[in-house]
């Protein structure tokens, strides 16, 4: 049962055709890892899914909401896009935590602002989310007092607090010191085991091998091939896939 359906997604930045027609279908509880060289369009694809980038053409369906590219940005369309965003949790490479709020206030922000949850309810919810990502003792710390790995885990908790249908990770560990990468991957792995539907753009090959139900290899704005991690890492069919894997491993 597909939760996300992307049809013929295209995105141009001026003359630059970053996405040249992507068709992708994600099922409930599936963990999909997207890999590819720099400039292949992986981050752009992810950012189109929650409309941080407006696609130039194509259709995006998440849950019951569907948005067709190129429509006039009127109030109704803005509302649909907002509803779409409420159902996707986005985790940024540079965390983007709110620096003027403590860890727990960051996690409380979503429920309070979006779901209208009361402060007390939101606080309880946020505390349980922070405990879940292993930061129960850091609730009242400001982002500036946390390490990169801790900040990213707070960012994950912040997205989880809105109970999304799918989590989107845009290179979640690329900005972290190597020794902090594992603590974040550990949290993502745990979420995958719980059945959260996830799309992860990452360069962490070993991690992909462990968690991915499906690996999608992109190059030049197109999906070159996709399959299980055994298929893609073990016996890639396309020359470009093999070339990429040999350079990275």
């Amino acid at each position: 049962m597909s939760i996300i359906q992307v049809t013929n997604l295209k995105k141009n930045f001026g003359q630059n055709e970053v996405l040249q027609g992507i068709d992708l279908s994600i099922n409930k509880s599936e963990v999909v890892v997207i890999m590819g060289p720099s400039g292949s369009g992986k981050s752009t694809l992810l950012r189109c899914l929650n409309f941080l980038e407006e696609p130039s053409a194509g259709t995006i369906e998440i849950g019951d909401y569907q948005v067709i590219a190129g429509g006039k940005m009127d109030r109704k369309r803005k509302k649909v896009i907002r509803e779409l965003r409420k159902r996707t949790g986005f985790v940024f490479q540079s965390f983007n935590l709110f620096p003027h709020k403590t860890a727990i206030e960051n996690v409380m922000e979503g429920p309070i602002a979006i779901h209208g949850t009361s402060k007390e309810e939101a606080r309880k919810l946020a505390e349980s989310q922070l405990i879940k990502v292993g930061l129960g003792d850091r609730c009242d710390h400001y982002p500036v007092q946390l390490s990169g790995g801790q900040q990213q885990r707070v960012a994950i908790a912040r997205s989880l607090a809105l109970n999304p249908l799918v989590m989107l990770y845009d290179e979640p560990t690329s900005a972290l010191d190597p020794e902090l990468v594992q603590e974040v991957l550990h949290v993502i792995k745990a979420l995958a085991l719980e059945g959260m539907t996830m799309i992860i753009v990452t360069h962490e090959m070993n991690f992909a091998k462990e968690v991915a139900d499906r690996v999608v290899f992109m190059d030049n704005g197109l999906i070159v091939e996709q399959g299980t991690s055994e298929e893609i890492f073990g016996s890639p069919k396309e020359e470009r896939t093999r070339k990429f894997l040999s350079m990275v491993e």
Partner: protein
Amino acid sequence: MDFTIIIDSLPSLLKATLMTILLAGISIVIALLIGFITAIVRIIKVKFLHKVAGLYVSVIRGTPLLVQIFVIYYGLPQIGISLDPISSGIVALSLNAGAYLSESFRASILAVDHGQTEAAMSMGMTYAQSLKRIILPQSLRIAIPTLSNSFIILIKDTSLVSVITVTELLQMSSLIIAKTFEPLTIYLIAAAIYWVVISSFTVLLDKMELRTSKYLVR
């Protein structure tokens, strides 16, 4: 320098300083309102209004304050709007500072990292929500240095209102000098009073800047 002159003239000068502070205080509050609304209108590009706002900023910044004061006090009566000197002064000072403040606000909002807006919007917030909850609180700290510049300039600009007969500090100084013929003494005292007022105000603003930077200190 005759010290009795200093002591004799101090009460009048200090009373006039109260007028200066009153003019500055009221104008700052109104200017903050005008500046903030203008900045928001221009940032979210409210239909038609944002062009009016742009024109307002351009005209105010492109004309001397003294000309603006004269237009309001001497010019407006010609089309039937007569304001007394103090009101004219406040209107002119507010409109003038408002334009500069709007640019300060606009710059401070634009200076907040774009990733913050992205994080807020990807949660499903409206732009208005992201402004109110995430962007504006962070922009305040950034805005304070340029805001305080404008406030200080406004306090000094109150001296221009002396030309439309408002008895603030500069006007009072000139009146006393007409009686005592001690320009150096009196003008130096006036300058010293301006300095004390502005320095005290700066201390307040520094405290405000520290308060809004709490979350950045480990």
